[in-house]
């Protein structure tokens, strides 16, 4: 089932009209090719103008669109020899955190990322992309291994947040996230992070304290979900649209604050319409980020990474 976004309705209406016309043609009726291409042009223009001025609240919807490519889609298309590695060697395996060895355009690396799933079965298997302590500890283990073998780390960030549950608390969710951040800020190999959908708070930063942090054009990254923020500050989740605007959670805002290093443009109409094209664009961005970091001495790399995070916010004075 394709989810309909409210603001996309005029576009979808046109698209269904095109579909109808095409159907007429194929069932041997009149040739409507002209009409179809005219309508298609209209759809394209509408998509371009709509997506050029999405409001923050609309971006939240696009970032969470179920058809948007998720971590496993990127892994499948961008990486070869993907070898998933399981477990934190302490408690268990967490399928919400995809993790393994792979080659990225020929170069061996470690890849990590939250996977939300795309249907009921996979969503349950991956716990909707909400990682538990064992998932963060597995990520930590793999980052340390990457350092041992001088492999770069690529992380794909897409989560509503770390899992809030009794067992997660018992096993030290806070400590697991804290250690994961610490490890990101400790390993002497390049780390490139891409926020591909939703960067949800502590659950996201745990694998995003990177040398290069990139974000897709319509992705979001925030300290709290707009719904959570609205229910606390406005005492009503209905104000989430206002909260989305107030939180400044778009890629464009984050670039302005220098919290991220670059924005990866999405094809017009958003990643959910042009999945493969989007994934390839992200691939190119990762490649150039890794290229920039190549050849840097490990200690210098680490010092720069730390200085970058120490400096965030300072320039606003």
């Amino acid at each position, binding site marked *: 089932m394709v989810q309909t976004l409210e603001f996309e309705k005029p576009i979808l209406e046109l698209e269904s009209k095109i579909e109808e016309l095409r159907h007429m043609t194929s069932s041997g009726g009149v040739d409507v090719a002209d009409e179809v291409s005219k309508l298609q042009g209209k759809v394209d223009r509408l998509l371009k103008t709509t997506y050029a001025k999405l409001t923050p609240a609309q971006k939240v919807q696009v970032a969470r669109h179920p058809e948007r490519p998720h971590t496993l889609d990127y892994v499948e298309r961008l990486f070869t020899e993907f070898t998933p590695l399981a477990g934190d060697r302490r408690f268990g395996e967490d399928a919400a955190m995809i993790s393994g060895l792979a080659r990225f355009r020929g170069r061996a690396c470690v890849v990590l990322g939250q996977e939300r799933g795309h249907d009921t079965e996979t969503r349950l298997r991956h716990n909707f992309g909400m990682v538990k302590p064992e998932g963060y500890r597995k990520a930590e283990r793999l980052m340390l291994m990457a350092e041992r073998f001088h492999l770069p780390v690529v992380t794909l960030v897409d989560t509503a947040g770390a899992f809030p549950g009794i067992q997660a*608390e018992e096993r030290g*969710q*806070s400590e697991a996230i*804290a250690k994961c951040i610490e490890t990101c800020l400790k390993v002497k190999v390049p780390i490139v992070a891409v926020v591909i959908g939703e960067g949800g708070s*502590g659950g996201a930063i745990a694998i995003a*304290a990177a040398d290069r942090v990139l974000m897709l054009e319509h992705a979001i990254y925030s300290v709290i979900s707009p719904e959570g923020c609205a229910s606390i500050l406005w005492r009503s989740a209905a*104000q989430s649209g206002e909260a989305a605007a107030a939180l400044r959670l778009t890629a464009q805002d984050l670039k302005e604050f220098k*919290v991220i290093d670059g924005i990866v443009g999405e094809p017009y109409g958003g990643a959910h319409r042009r999945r493969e094209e989007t994934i390839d664009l992200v691939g190119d961005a990762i490649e150039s980020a890794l290229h920039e970091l190549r050849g840097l001495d490990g200690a210098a790399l680490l010092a720069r990474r730390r200085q970058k995070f120490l400096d965030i916010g300072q320039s606003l*004075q």
Partner: protein
Amino acid sequence: MADDDEKESTPMNWINNYVRPRLARLVAPKEVPDNLWIKCPSCGQMLYKRDLEANLNVCHHCNHHMRLGPKQRLTTLFDDGRYALIELPKPAVDPLRFRDTKRYSDRIKDAQNKTGQQDAIQVAHGDIGGMKTVVAAFDFSFMGGSMGMAVGDGLVAAAKLAVLQQAALIVVPASGGARMQEGILSLMQMPRSVIAVEQVKEAGLPYIVLLTDPTTGGVSASFAMLGDIHIAEPGAQIGFAGARVIEETIRETLPEGFQRAEYLRDHGMVDMVVHRKDLQATLARVIGLLTRPGPGASVVKISRAAAPAE
């Protein structure tokens, strides 16, 4: 995530709302300090304020540890209550121009007027057990002790000072988490504070976290869980997700004592739970053990050679 301000509302009932104002009008208003007595939120006993303060804000009846402001906190931790505060950088004000039902810049001003402080952290140096120590103490009464850029600045400054003075660093969080009015910039205080304490640890100095009520959200998931030693006050709430969020997610009621200091100790996240009156002695002992190896030290000197001990 930090909710603003303490929510200690008085129960609404007709006696308070209706009868009392009338009675008050009948009896001419007298200049009586209204907060001579404080009700213990745990056992309900009425406590005389002066006695309570003398007992470090711990209830005489049930040992409930009430919150302690940074000033009292620093006084109780340092030898003879003597310390020097350091001046912290002036924080960037309202970087997002955030506004909910109220402007963030107004909320900050209100909190500043209420507490007389610039933001939710104070940093001091002095001696504990005769050893140089830097303490960074959170102020829960300042917007729920939430961590924004100013708090991050305070932690970075505290870490720098500890390294400079070759002193131990103790951080005393009392915070609901990140300050959401600073958006992503508050989230970025997580890596920032982690780097700060990492610098202390890499300098070979002890980093001790004294977890007090509450230590949750982005604060617990960053510097507060990275100490060499974690000491918690009895009953302190410590955890990642808020109780309400967990209950909504899993639709179960939470077990007794969930996310309390003792629960964290039992689950291996906290080294010890220590009564407020014993904190100074405990900290002094721990710092001493970590930094003053004593006369037999050469025996355990770490050496790459596999030679037997002398």
